[in-house]
């Protein structure tokens, strides 16, 4: 078989490191340590006849004894009074709003017998349009977190009576207010009309109150730039769906930036080459982000240079437009022709282009506004009228609050679900200040860093236990309704605020209060709660007038730019863990990072060049300092694509007060943040590192389940595709089958299509599958041993970008030429069981535990499986997972499966597997069976879309399509005939049921074809 070496999963594979070559073909990471275990107990493997008889006798008697136990008595306990809308055994769905972050995506909560077990997207939400992300999917487990506070706390001790707390708190608040002491309510960005109203009621009662908005992640650069440019301190609505050319400076809008699900949905609409057109996406960034991996052209850039890049871009466009350029001396040729080319394309797509930037620097963002104004993008791809309410945090307010606290002007502080002691860059100053306050209240539902210092902790409900309304975008109202009664003795924060402001208990009840606020039109409320969404007509979009002086901005940028190329440290958000507020959620740690494929830790990303010059190796522990702060003993990860001279550390780790999972996991990078020109800066110059000589093995899955360089991925350029839609797919394997074909004609034939062009690699499908199929969390140590249990994994393949690298055979890659690793392309390929028609696993099972169904599904019967692992060995895709341990009820796996509360998230329609069996993707057979049954019961034909797998429902980019191939009108049947569709490893002749669709990049063809020709 021809070895295609274009793609590689990690540097160890690209360089063919001997250790990697040795182990890549192994089914298991290491041989089973049998000898070791037996030696430890002074036993050797050889046994004589007597031993054999002893063991034999012992086993027989043990089995006999075990079998003597009689079947235990089981009970069937019905409701005393059955709630009308609950049918035991059937799921109910309630529309609500996701509380995983502040984006306000609409969700449908699936509940069984009154307990929420899964979140799906709400199609009616204009933001998320039925999609979810990994963070949102996982947030359901925070409801069943055993580390949540069971009762309110007073001075660290449990106090079960709310009324007692309330009277104490109100009297203290009244004392502070009457003595003219300041009261501050610190809350994350609120976009809830009812909550804002409650805050007003509180302010009326205690006039010395001020509300301070605090978010761990700041977008104030955009807010202030828009105030400066247009007189509006807002984040605009971006319409990536209307953009034909997108240029992003570090903004990870598909992964973490502002509202990633919404942006992914928009972005993907222009990523289908069917009509011969694709959007063109440039990404300039220093650390490889999820968005960067999906860009057509990705250019590594030092973050400190961003301003200079923006000026060049402005000038290039101005040149084309014939308007005045910004006279700036430092305007060198940057990044080859990338700036020039992007300027050309942006100008050609005037009014249909979009420039965005991650930078939190006021000047940079003002310049971005200037570029977008010049391109005429306001009113089309940028909408300032129907703006976003997703972030309103401006540092100045919070800095003032911290200063007031230190000066003793503030006497009472109420933290509403915010944890600045962990995430504020100058935490020690805040902690000192809090000591001067008389009253500190936190509504955190866990004992986190902030609530640990609070005199009173009045835990808020989880969002699945709460009533609420939100306005994430102007005119878009998203409603939250409880789907379970509060698990613990907690109370909604809005209720606490209202009660403390003296509102009578009945009125202060969250449901009554919010309903009253919507009472003006009774029809709104009922429909809004049913749909989860209420829309007001959008404002008419106009082109704003631009008021900023760009010449001053440009000269400020040049002044601020570093004069020499010192190394810099980038602080970024990871997909999944994000800002760290859900650090105690094991699902978010178990899902590998989409880029580095590391689970459970954060690390310093280093470019290969930098690593070589500093003598760093993967997994080395180093101390890293920048801006006066040092993190000790943090592991190194060599990250292809990382801009030379830059380091990157993710936020959200190193929680000192969290639950059993999140506590002391990784290192806290928040103290590296600093305020520059009034906004938080996410990069830091003057990095110094020192090696410690120790190593720490990161749990990295990137080269697990490697397919030994077989032709897995197909990609082509848009030009090639337009000339020949079958490009790379011309030669279908000519297969002679030795097996008899199955007859699928009786009912359905299930199939799946995965569009490599749409998949962004975000990991929502992985978490969704995890929840739906009761996949256990195995933990860091087991991941290191390649024993992660995910039924679906996202393979991330790198390939070299620069033309020289393309001409080099992989074997000849000179290890010294480290800079070839700076320019890479990425393909994300989700891989799950391919449900082969001639499945190699089925033929080797000695006990017929894995069999074929008449609907084309490769079935796995756990109760038959005896764990020989032959099937896993014979699977060419390496998608079968062996269940090594009893993960439930086992304190060695101390996550959520070993306590009754955590187990409430288990899907009752799917078996919880025990140790010693193989398991794998079932195509969500429980959903298939349920979908078929409901059609049969109603006596109707099945419709396309009646059955969707968990991964397909979660996907924000519609990359996964599932359906019945016997239905000629189904989407999947059409995709099967698509020119781009191919089977992975089709030459093996196993006829998978999953098709992949060729990735089409909007780049010049030469760079992709040279390798192939």
């Amino acid at each position, binding site marked *: 078989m021809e070895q295609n070496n274009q793609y590689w999963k990690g540097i160890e594979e690209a360089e063919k490191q001997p250790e990697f070559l040795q182990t890549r073909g192994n089914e298991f990471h290491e041989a089973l340590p049998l000898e070791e275990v037996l030696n430890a*107990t*002074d*036993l050797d493997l050889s046994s004589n006849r007597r*031993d054999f008889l*002893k*063991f034999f006798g*012992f086993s027989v*008697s*043990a089995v006999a*004894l075990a*079998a*003597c*136990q*009689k*079947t*235990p*008595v*089981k*009970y*069937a*306990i*019905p*409701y*005393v*009074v*059955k709630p009308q809308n609950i*049918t*035991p*055994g*059937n799921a109910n769905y309630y529309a609500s709003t996701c509380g995983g972050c502040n984006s306000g995506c609409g969700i449908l909560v699936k509940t069984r017998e009154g307990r929420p077990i899964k979140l799906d997207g709400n199609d009616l939400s204009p933001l998320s349009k039925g999609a979810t992300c990994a963070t949102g999917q996982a947030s359901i487990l925070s409801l069943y977190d055993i580390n949540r506070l069971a009762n309110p706390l007073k001075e660290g001790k449990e106090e079960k009576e709310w009324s007692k707390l309330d009277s104490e708190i109100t009297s203290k608040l009244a004392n502070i207010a009457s003595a003219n002491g300041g009261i501050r309510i610190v809350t994350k960005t609120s976009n809830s009309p009812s909550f804002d109203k409650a805050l007003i009621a509180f302010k009326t009662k205690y006039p010395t109150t001020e509300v301070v908005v605090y978010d761990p992640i700041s977008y104030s650069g955009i807010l202030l730039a828009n105030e400066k440019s247009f007189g509006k301190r807002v984040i605009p609505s971006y319409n990536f769906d209307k953009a034909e050319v997108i240029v992003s400076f570090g903004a990870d809008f598909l992964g973490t930036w502002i509202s990633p699900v919404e942006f992914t949905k928009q972005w993907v609409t222009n990523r289908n080459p069917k009509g011969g057109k694709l959007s063109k996406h440039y990404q300039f960034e220093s650390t490889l982000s999820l968005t960067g991996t999906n860009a057509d052209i990705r250019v590594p850039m030092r973050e400190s240079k961003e301003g200079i890049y923006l000026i060049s871009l402005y000038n290039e466009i101005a040149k084309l437009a014939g308007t005045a350029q910004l006279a700036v001396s430092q305007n060198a040729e940057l990044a080859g022709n990338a700036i020039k080319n992007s300027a050309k394309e942006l100008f050609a797509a005037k009014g249909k282009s979009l420039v965005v930037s991650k930078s939190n620097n006021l000047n940079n963002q003002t310049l971005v506004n200037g570029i977008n104004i010049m391109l005429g993008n306001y009113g089309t791809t940028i909408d300032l009228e129907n703006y976003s309410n997703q972030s309103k945090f401006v540092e100045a307010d919070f800095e003032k609050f911290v200063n007031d606290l230190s000066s003793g002007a503030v006497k009472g502080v109420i933290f509403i679900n915010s944890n600045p002691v962990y995430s504020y860059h100058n935490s020690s100053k805040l902690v000192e200040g809090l000591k001067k306050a008389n009253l500190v209240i936190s509504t955190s539902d866990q004992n986190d860093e902030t609530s640990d210092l609070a005199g009173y902790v009045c835990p808020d409900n989880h969002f699945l236990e709460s009533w609420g309304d939100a306005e994430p975008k102007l005119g878009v109202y998203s409603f939250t309704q409880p789907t379970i009664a509060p698990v613990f003795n907690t109370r909604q924060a809005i209720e606490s605020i209202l009660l403390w402001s003296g509102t009578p208990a009945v009125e202060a009840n969250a449901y009554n209060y919010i309903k009253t606020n919507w009472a003006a039109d009774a029809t709104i409320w009922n429909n809004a709660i049913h749909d989860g969404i209420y829309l007001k007509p959008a404002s008419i979009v106009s082109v704003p007038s631009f008021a900023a002086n760009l010449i001053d901005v440009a000269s400020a940028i040049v002044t601020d730019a570093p004069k020499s190329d010192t190394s810099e440290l980038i602080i970024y958000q990871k997909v999944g863990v994000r800002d760290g507020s859900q650090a105690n959620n094991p699902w978010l740690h178990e899902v590998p990072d989409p880029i580095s494929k590391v689970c459970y830790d954060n690390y310093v990303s280093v470019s290969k060049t930098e690593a070589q010059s500093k003598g760093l190796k993967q997994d080395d522990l180093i101390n890293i300092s920048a801006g006066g702060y040092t993190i000790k003993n943090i592991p190194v990860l060599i990250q292809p694509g990382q801009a030379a001279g830059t380091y990157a550390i993710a936020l959200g780790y190193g929680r000192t007060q969290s639950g059993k999972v999140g506590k002391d996991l990784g290192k806290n990078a928040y103290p590296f943040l600093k305020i520059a020109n009034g906004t938080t800066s996410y990069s830091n110059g003057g990095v110094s590192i020192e090696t410690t000589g120790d190593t720490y093995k990161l749990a990295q899955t990137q080269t697990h389940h490697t397919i030994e360089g077989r032709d897995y991925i197909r990609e082509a350029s848009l030009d090639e595709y337009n000339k020949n839609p079958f490009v790379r797919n011309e030669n279908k394997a000519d297969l002679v089958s030795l097996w008899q074909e199955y007859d699928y*004609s*009786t*009912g359905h034939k299930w199939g799946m299509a995965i569009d490599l062009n749409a998949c962004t690699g975000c990991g929502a499908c992985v978490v969704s599958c995890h929840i739906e199929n009761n996949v256990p969390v195995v933990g860091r140590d087991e991941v290191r041993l390649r024993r992660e249990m995910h039924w679906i994994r996202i393979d991330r393949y790198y390939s070299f970008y620069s033309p020289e690298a393309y001409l080099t055979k992989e074997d000849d890659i000179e290890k010294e030429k480290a800079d070839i690793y700076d320019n890479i392309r990425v393909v994300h390929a989700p891989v799950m069981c391919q449900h082969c028609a001639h499945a190699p696993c089925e033929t080797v099972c000695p006990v017929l*535990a894995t*069999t074929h*169904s*008449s609907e084309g*599904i490769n*079935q*796995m*019967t*756990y*109760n*038959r499986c005896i764990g020989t692992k032959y099937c896993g060995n014979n699977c060419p895709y390496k998608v079968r997972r062996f269940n090594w341990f009893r993960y439930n009820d086992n304190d060695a796996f101390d996550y959520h499966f070993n306590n009754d509360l955590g187990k409430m998230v288990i899907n009752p*329609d*799917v*078996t*919880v597997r025990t140790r010693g069996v193989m398991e794998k993707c*079932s195509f969500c*057979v*429980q959903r298939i*069976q349920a979908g*078929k*049954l409901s059609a*049969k*019961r109603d*006596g*109707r*034909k*099945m419709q396309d879309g009646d059955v969707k797998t968990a991964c397909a429902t979660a996907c924000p980019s519609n990359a996964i399509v599932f359906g019945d191939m016997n239905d000629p009108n189904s989407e999947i049947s059409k995709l099967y005939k698509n020119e781009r569709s191919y089977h992975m490893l089709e030459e093996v002749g196993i006829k998978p049921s999953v098709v992949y669709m060729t990735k089409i990049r909007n780049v010049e063809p030469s760079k992709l074809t040279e390798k192939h020709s």
Partner: protein
Amino acid sequence: MLKYLNSRRNAAALMSVLSASTALMAQQVAAAPGEKPSLFYTDTTFVIVLLLCLLFFVIAYFLYRVKSHLDKMIDENVEGGRELSRYDKVVKPWLKTLNPTVTALLLGTIFGLFAFVKAYKFGITEVGVQKGYSPTQPIKFSHAMHAGKLQVDCKYCHSTAEKSKQASIPSANTCMNCHKYITLRDRYNGQVSPEISKIYKAIGWDAETNTYIPNYKQKPIEWIRIHNLPDLAYFNHSQHVVVGKVVCQTCHGPIQEMDQVYQFSSLQMNWCINCHKERSVDVANNKYYESLHKRLKIQGKTVYTVAENGGLECGKCHY
């Protein structure tokens, strides 16, 4: 643990641990609450049979010893010995020609095989099979009275059988629909029937004033579950009742005649499979099967069993 087996002394210790744990297990079984001995399997009969066997074995052994002793005495005291029996003349010399090791092994194998087959059969037909299981329920509810004599429709109480996986045991408020009025005071000297008053106790109904007691702490009725499918098997009532048009009695037996419900079917997999092999799918009257029905008509096929429709595939019930 394994290390312990290496020395003989420890093996003895181990044996005592094992027997102690058996005793503990037995205690556990005895402690299981609310359970009555079922029809098919009682501990006492088993123990009595075991003791009788032991007793007969001891008697036989003693008789044999007495006989051989007497034989020996005859041989010593009577000249020429006793008259040789047929056994002594024919069987004994033949036995002496046999190799003792081979014979012992042969007999052992035959006996072992026999025991294994027996044990296997017992294992698959008896262990965990609760056919006939008929525990005493917390309320002496009679299906013979309600479903048989009074002709209450099964689905009045088991209302979700057509909608859901579970047929579901009715909640107490369903009982109250009738038992608000039916108290059987005429049979209990003006008192409410003790069984009916158990419902009242659960839901908080004051039979004297005919009102619900406000703020009553309700307690659910803890029925003992009779039909216990293992968790690894998925079964859906609505599939069988609505789509398959199976009547309740097919699986649950003459439920309308049972005063105390017992498990009628074995609920073993072969029981499921046999039914799937025999029953046919009603493809003609369900639009879901429209295209299949058309094709079967062309083929001239009139009977289409569940098995032909994929009803024997593992993944239809095990996932």
